[in-house]
């Protein structure tokens, strides 16, 4: 009895009129929620990767010096020396007008006063965020100004990155929970099916059917329901994910841009109903064989 073949007479062995579409709709809902959770996880993982990539090699040299002339001279030397280091992609002193603008909410117009002893800030982009490259920058800066302070951007935003990772793992847990719930639904459905088709199964057994032949009848039907319902739920969920992605892209946020799903993510989401159908097939087989094992 080959499963999943539409024209096979075995397909008719179980009374189709007794079949309810409940399983199909339950699977549609399960996959709808699972795909949303998986999309959240993939999006957050992507955002976390983007954040890490963007911040890993980015740092700021802060030079606090009361004497403006000395500070400016030291800044120019540091910029030159750091630019000459290997692995340095970009070095730029932050414009003082831009600094004053950033401080304006706290200092008001006083921030624009040229005599205000504001530290010099130098932005550095490294090819990678490995500690050797950062140490080289630190050494070069402190050779010129021993009080120079090196701030890694990754360090500032590490709580954000950790939060994104937490959401990712939360989404993974949701997917696992949904898969477990789906397997339980399949087990209960298979047992219910065995019960409602008890007479048919008794006749099949008396005619010499093996447990595996009976199991194939149920696992084929349950896997098909899971696949069809799963595809419905997946399509609906992917539509919502796509709409949310469009809205996020419209915001122009660098961080939210990282949440956008890449083609591999879409492929993974599309494979979820297939994976769930396979899992349902195995769960149905286990449930049916386990129940039949207790009969003669």
């Amino acid at each position, binding site marked *: *009895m080959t499963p999943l073949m539409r024209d096979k*007479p*075995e397909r*008719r*062995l179980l*009374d*189709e*009129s007794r079949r309810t579409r409940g399983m199909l709709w339950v699977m549609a809902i399960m996959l709808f929620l699972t795909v949303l959770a998986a999309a959240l996880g993939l999006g957050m993982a992507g955002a976390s990767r983007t954040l890490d990539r963007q911040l890993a090699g980015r740092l700021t040299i802060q030079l606090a010096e009361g004497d403006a002339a000395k500070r400016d001279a030291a800044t120019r030397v540091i910029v030159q020396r750091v630019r000459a280091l290997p692995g340095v992609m970009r070095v730029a002193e932050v414009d003082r007008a831009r600094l004053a603008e950033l401080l304006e909410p706290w200092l008001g117009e006083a921030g624009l006063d040229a005599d205000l002893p504001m530290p010099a800030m130098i932005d550095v982009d490294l090819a990678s965020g490995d500690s050797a490259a950062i140490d080289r920058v630190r050494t070069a800066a402190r050779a010129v100004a021993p009080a120079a302070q090196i701030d890694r951007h990754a360090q500032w935003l590490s709580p954000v990155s950790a939060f994104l990772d937490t959401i990712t793992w939360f989404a993974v847990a949701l997917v696992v929970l949904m898969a477990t719930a789906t397997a339980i639904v399949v087990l209960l459905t298979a047992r219910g099916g065995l019960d409602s088709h008890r*007479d*048919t199964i*008794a*006749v*099949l*057994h*008396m*005619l*010499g*059917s*093996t*447990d595996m*032949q009976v199991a194939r009848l149920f696992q084929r039907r349950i896997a098909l329901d899971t696949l069809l319902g799963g595809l419905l739920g997946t399509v609906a969920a992917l539509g919502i994910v796509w709409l949310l992605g469009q809205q996020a892209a419209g915001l122009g946020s660098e961080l939210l841009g990282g949440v956008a799903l890449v083609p591999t993510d879409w492929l993974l989401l599309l494979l979820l109903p297939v994976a769930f159908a396979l899992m349902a097939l195995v769960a149905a087989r286990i449930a049916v064989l386990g129940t039949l*094992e207790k009969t*003669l």
Partner: protein
Amino acid sequence: MAGAFGAGFIQERPGAGMANIVQFENVGLRYGTGAETLSDVSFTLSAGSFYFVTGASGAGKTSLLKLLYLAQRPTRGIVRLFGEDAGALPRKRLPGFRRRIGVVFQDFRLLPHLSAYDNVALPLRVAGMPESEVEGPVREMLAWVGLKDRDAAKPPTLSGGEQQRIAIARSVITRPEILIADEPTGNVDPDMAERLLHLFDSLNRLGTTVVVATHDFQLISRIPDARMMRIEKGRLNDPTGALRYPPGKPPS
């Protein structure tokens, strides 16, 4: 009728006196914690023989047949089928044994959502016969039980007699080594009863061991070589299986 099993095949009954195909030794059967339905049942069935099992309603005929077609395991004693202890058979070997046994159930047990054709074809499909080889024997069998024009009918639309004929066709289509029938002529007219009995006789002459449970003594008298086992209150009162109907007439 003979066409169903090939022309000119019925010559003589080869069975009686050959190896024992079924052996019961002090068999008891109890459902749950109730009293024993069958007690101390011992007998042997020779391969190729024809047996009638008689007894009043509730005497234990159906329980005896259930042990024979492996729907029950004995509570005690030994049931040997085809030389093996059926009570000790692991589950995975039961299907192979059941395919060697044809059963006509008292309540037919046809699958109501399948057509007459599909019901008759069921044992062949269960046995894994290719679909291309299924149609010929099924059509022949339906014609043989006089229902070739009712092949698409579902059991609920068939009369009791027609359902019984479909059930018989299903039970014999695989040419089983043992055919067990529980009141197989209870719902058919006398002509059809005689035809069905002739079918069983034909199968028996081909080597199939036939066991028929019935109340109908007229039916029993139509198979002169058949042996009779009588069950009373769960006990076999003819352990040798040599009694015949009418009593006192020696086996031929």
